């Protein structure tokens, strides 16, 4: 993020007259602050709204609360349902990430390093999955999961999530694995190392960046996923947070102060993790897109 001069060679700095560069800077900041406020105001008022009473919210949605209502937040924090749904999200996210990494890495390794008849077709077969949104097959998917007896279980959510993430993950990993130099493989082979040992001992340790990227993408997608759990889960005790938040909103109707507090608390983990690991997350989410 440091070499940002790319678009503006230093030449412009010194050659345009001081006046015009000042105007330019002013314009830049004005535009940036405007957009930033459009982004932030809804978020900040949401967080603040959770501290208000309903009446306060009605008369004064923007300002600070007339009286800070900690009770709203405390009530949610002491409720079982809040922790339960975060836990559900966490478990589903963990298994989705773990399985995606394990299954995709093995397949990607085979497609990258082992020569066998039809490997090209196989890769294309997986890439086919990239083109179609989950929604095209959501009904048959529901029926399949039902017939497998996985409805309303974590696995009914995890397995389809993993399957739909495979195309992208295999593609990213295969492209990365291919860059492991062939000499390395030859050397390992001479040392008496087979494919599987090589995978464990050489490929995986060298592939931390791509594992991080694929892992972050898988986890974030699972954490935020709505449609698959919506269709596969029926009992509220299994709901991950996007579903939980919707059912909470259904229950509380127009008790916006509670809903806002609930939203704030549910997106809080995301926001904290985002700011703590922003470099990796941005890189993961965008480079995943670009490199794919």
């Amino acid at each position: 993020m440091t070499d940002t001069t790319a678009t503006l060679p230093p030449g412009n700095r010194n050659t345009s007259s001081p006046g015009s560069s000042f105007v330019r800077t002013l314009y830049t900041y004005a535009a940036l602050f405007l957009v930033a406020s459009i982004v932030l105001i809804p978020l900040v008022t949401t967080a603040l709204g959770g501290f208000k009473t309903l009446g306060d919210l009605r008369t004064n949605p923007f300002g600070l609360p007339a009286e800070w209502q900690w009770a709203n937040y405390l009530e949610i924090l002491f409720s079982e349902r809040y922790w339960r749904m975060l836990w559900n999200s966490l478990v589903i996210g963990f298994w989705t990430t773990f399985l995606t990494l394990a299954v995709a890495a093995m397949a990607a390794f085979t497609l990258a390093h082992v020569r066998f008849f039809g490997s090209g077709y196989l890769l294309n077969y997986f890439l086919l999955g990239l083109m179609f949104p989950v929604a095209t097959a959501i009904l048959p998917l529901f029926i399949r999961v039902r017939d497998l007896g996985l409805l309303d279980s974590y696995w009914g959510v995890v397995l389809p999530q993993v399957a739909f993430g495979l195309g992208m993950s295999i593609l990213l990993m295969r492209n990365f694995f291919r860059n492991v130099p062939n000499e390395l493989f030859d050397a390992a082979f001479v040392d008496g190392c087979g494919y599987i040992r090589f995978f464990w001992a050489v490929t995986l340790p060298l592939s931390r960046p791509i594992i991080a990227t694929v892992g972050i993408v898988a986890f974030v997608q699972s954490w935020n996923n709505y449609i698959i759990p919506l269709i596969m889960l029926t009992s509220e005790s299994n709901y991950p947070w996007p579903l939980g938040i919707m059912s909470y909103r259904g229950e509380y109707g127009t008790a916006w102060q509670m809903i806002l507090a609930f939203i704030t608390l549910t997106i809080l983990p995301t926001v904290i993790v985002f700011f703590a690991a922003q470099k990796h997350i941005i890189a993961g989410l965008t480079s995943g897109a670009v490199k794919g």
Partner: protein
Amino acid sequence: MTTALQNWASSARRKIKENARPIRREEPIGPARWPVLVLFMPPALLLFTIFVILPIGEAAWYSVFNWNGYGRPEEFVGLRNFEVLFRNNAFRQALQNTGLIMLVSIIIQVPLALWLAMLLARKIPGVVGFRLIFFLPYVLADVAAGLIWRFVYDGDFGLFAAIFGFFGMETPYVLADRNVAIYAVLAVVVWKYFGFHMMLFIAGLQAIDKHLLEAADIDGASGWQKFRYVTLPLLGPTVRLSIFFAVIGSLQLFDVVMPLTGGGPSNSTETLVTFLYSYGVMRMQVGFGSAAGVVLFVICVVLAFTYKRVLMRND
């Protein structure tokens, strides 16, 4: 997702090359291949086939039946599901809305993202902070974003109420007005996703050799000319990528719409996926819903090929 196509193309090309040149490992020397094939391929193959490929195929199969999902599909109805589908006003509205979302994403969101990326590519204090802020909505779950904006638009409590009240005007109930609701949804879509496109552009801008812009300086280009003749052409691949994501995203749009309007009022904000959900899943009309899924599938295929043909000709 991107680039599924690009990769398709390039892997096909690569394949040809690979076949042409003899590779040492194809000869019997080398470690045994069967253990790795037997252990490493099946998990991915099975998962992918069972949960992705088969359901897509089954969607086509179910779409010619009238079926409520229990027992076996037996009542064969031919193409009648499709006929009903295309006569359904809500579906036509959904198609139209999906087109509109695509259009807005491409002609408003992508340029907005590029403009902000250019501003943020300047080396001025605070740039990194702004990037983070702009990217933040993208990281939040769509559902949360939708709910937050539901509050913003709320005519009684929300920010809109306050703003209009401040000017002494009557507050519009935007999400309840069938003429306006779709634009309210569009605004949220732009709010949610522009940061992602902006990051793509920032990455694209950073990949441009800065000597090229210096060379343009020396050649006598003004700021606008540099953008027009050097930056923009070199960003070509990024622009295409960004458009690709905008299109795919529009086709899948669901999570944001549900908390905002659920497709209402009177189907005015229906998208393809919300339609599929309300008419197929909620009513358990597997045949009819699958027909909608097949239409979505066909649109994806057509767009993918058009995209490959038109936009990636010179890649």
